[in-house]
């Protein structure tokens, strides 16, 4: 239903942009889902004019991250279908070209090059991993092709780490790690009522190291105490030594900004040596295999996610499209859907497929209605979305369970 709703929204956006009215978001929001469904079904098959608009999807279809990638591909297909049913973009059909990145930097360079040089795409969605997305930046920048990353949460994806300059053609649809660290720390302190916490992180991972720091800063700022901060090296299997040290400080909560594999092992071993703390993790925990790997040890743990299938707002969309997802449905699908709506709106407003114009419009997006929110805003200085909701999840009866949508106080 919401898919059709989105489709109608796009038609309206198109019409509104033709008559030059700027208040697009509100126009779509006032349409009731029931009437939009009728309108959509009574529409004749849309007829397109002109060359199709090519959107490249750089996605990990195989390899370690394929669970996320496959789901993301399905989500984007659904979004493109919705956009086309609503008449395409600028009256032109949207065509999706997929390229497998295998979540590997070298493969990504090849995949993005192919999309840019051979397929001549007008924009790219995807490259879900921060480290991998950074390898695509020079290519899209040189080619002036806008790219919207789905789940890269590292601040330096959209900003050049050395110069501090903005990467003009790189955008993201998810929140960033400092925000994530702040959100987890504030949720723990305010909602869970935890006053002291310990951290165990992977010293070999940028993501883990920074998230640990952001959590620590925010937790102390909120008024909490960090009782211990321990590290291990990537590839470690036995965490009982650092856990033993943490146990001595008896924290109420143990924050684990690590991969789902490490998290599962750490939780198991922590319970083995009778650490009774609440476990909490970052968005890396959102891989469903943490349930089979961690079993009862991860029961009752909390983590933060970039999007949730149990978010009441998108429940209808999930129900309607459940059959489209063959395997596990993960958050990447939702973020890819949002990215496509954002891109479609921007191309529409740009009035052309010129990369520079699209980038400018992506940057100037205000109060856009997308799948997950009524008002999607972008910070032009960082290319990060503003006020992105943080979804707090818990693990209950060996399944992910949505707790709440948490908005941290950012200072």
């Amino acid at each position, binding site marked *: 239903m919401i898919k059709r709703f989105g489709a109608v929204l796009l038609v309206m956006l198109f019409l509104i942009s033709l008559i030059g009215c700027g208040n697009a978001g509100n126009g779509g929001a006032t349409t009731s889902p029931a009437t939009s469904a009728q309108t959509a079904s009574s529409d004749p098959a849309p007829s397109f004019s002109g060359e199709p608009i090519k959107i490249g999807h750089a996605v990990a279809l195989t*390899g*370690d991250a394929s669970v996320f990638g496959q789901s993301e591909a399905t989500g984007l297909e659904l979004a493109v279908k919705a956009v086309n049913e609503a008449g395409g973009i600028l009256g032109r059909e949207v065509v999706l070209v997929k390229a497998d990145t295998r979540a590997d930097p070298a493969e990504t360079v090849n995949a993005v090059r192919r999309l840019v040089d051979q397929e001549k795409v007008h924009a790219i969605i995807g490259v879900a991993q921060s480290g991998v997305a950074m390898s695509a930046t020079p290519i899209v920048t040189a080619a002036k092709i806008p790219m919207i990353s789905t789940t890269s949460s590292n601040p330096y994806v959209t900003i050049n780490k050395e110069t501090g300059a903005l990467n003009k053609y790189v955008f993201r649809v998810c929140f960033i790690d400092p925000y994530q660290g702040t959100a987890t720390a504030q949720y723990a302190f305010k909602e869970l009522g935890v006053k002291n916490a310990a951290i165990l992180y992977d*010293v070999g991972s940028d993501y883990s190291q920074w998230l640990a720091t952001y959590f620590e800063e925010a937790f102390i700022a909120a008024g909490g105490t960090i009782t211990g901060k*321990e*590290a*291990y*090296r990537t*590839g470690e*299997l*036995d965490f*009982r*030594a*650092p856990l*033993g*040290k943490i*146990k*001595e400080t008896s924290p109420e909560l143990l924050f684990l900004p690590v991969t789902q*594999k490490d998290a*599962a*092992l750490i939780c198991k071993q922590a319970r*083995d*040596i*009778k650490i009774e703390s609440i476990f909490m993790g970052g968005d890396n925990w959102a891989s469903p*295999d943490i349930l*089979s*790997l*961690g*079993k*009862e040890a991860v029961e009752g743990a909390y983590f933060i996610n970039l999007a949730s299938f149990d978010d009441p707002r998108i429940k209808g969309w999930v129900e309607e499209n459940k059959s489209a997802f063959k395997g596990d449905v993960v958050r990447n699908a939702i973020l890819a859907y949002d990215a496509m709506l954002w891109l479609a709106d921007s191309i529409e407003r740009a009035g052309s497929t010129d990369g520079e114009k699209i980038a400018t419009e992506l940057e100037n997006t205000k109060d856009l209605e997308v799948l997950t929110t009524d008002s999607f805003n972008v910070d032009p200085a960082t290319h990060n979305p503003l006020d992105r909701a943080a979804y707090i999840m818990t693990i209950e009866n060996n399944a992910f369970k949505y707790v709440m949508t948490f908005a941290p106080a950012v200072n």
Partner: protein
Amino acid sequence: MLLQTLVTGLAIGGVYALMAVGYSLVFSILNFSNFAHGVIIMLGAYFGYYLCSSLGLGIGASMLGAMIGTAVISILNEKLAYRPLRLRKAVPLYFMISAMGAAMFLENMVYVTVGSHFYSYPSFFTGSISIGGAYVGLLDIVALSISTFFIILLTLFLNKTMMGTAIRAASRDMLVASTLGVNIDGLLMVVFALAGGFAGIAGVFLGVKYLVYPTMGVITNKAYIAAVIGGIGSLPGAIVGGLILGLVESFVSAYISTTLRDVFSFSMLIILLLVLPSGLFGKTLDEKL
């Protein structure tokens, strides 16, 4: 904290010892480091995982199945990758290179056929026992007891049987042993079957304790260091080396820094080799690779 560190160190050391035995066994006869051993341990973990999760067998039967599976793979490994070199009287360096090739081949075969997913065994021996305030995992106790049992069995086999005597003779001098009527092909089959069997036990324990995935064989690098510390080629050396390494790691992690742990283990290895080139219990050999 002291007791917990000690117990943790012994538990980790026990796993190292079990894996180090396989390295030492092969080294004692063929004088080369069988780097395919880690991959065979990994295969053992996969065999055990399929037997207990897909066929629903108990942990005992799964372990037995895994041991048979890895023994067969280990024998095939010898027949296909080492025997042709042996017949051509290649130097140990070539054996080691061939072993690395076999390791890469098997690891990539797992990637292609099973994939890179992580698997977790059904829960066995969960829970822990409290000893004076320190917690010992039940699994660690079981693993340590079963490892000790099999190592005793192996020692008895090597010292009390005809075949064991032949193996010990061949480890002194293969050429002389063969001129005195020892069937070297048959003997090596037994040695590799034994090393494979131990890899199977180690693999299943590692799988139950941690996870199952294609690169899990990497942890055997530590076992190899343990074997070298103890004096590679010596069975008691492998066990003592494993326990020492486990304890050092656990104490460095607890009292100095977790991130510096490997720096300490490897420094210890280098210093020990400078002082005692053949390890704690090693026999002096001309060629060590």
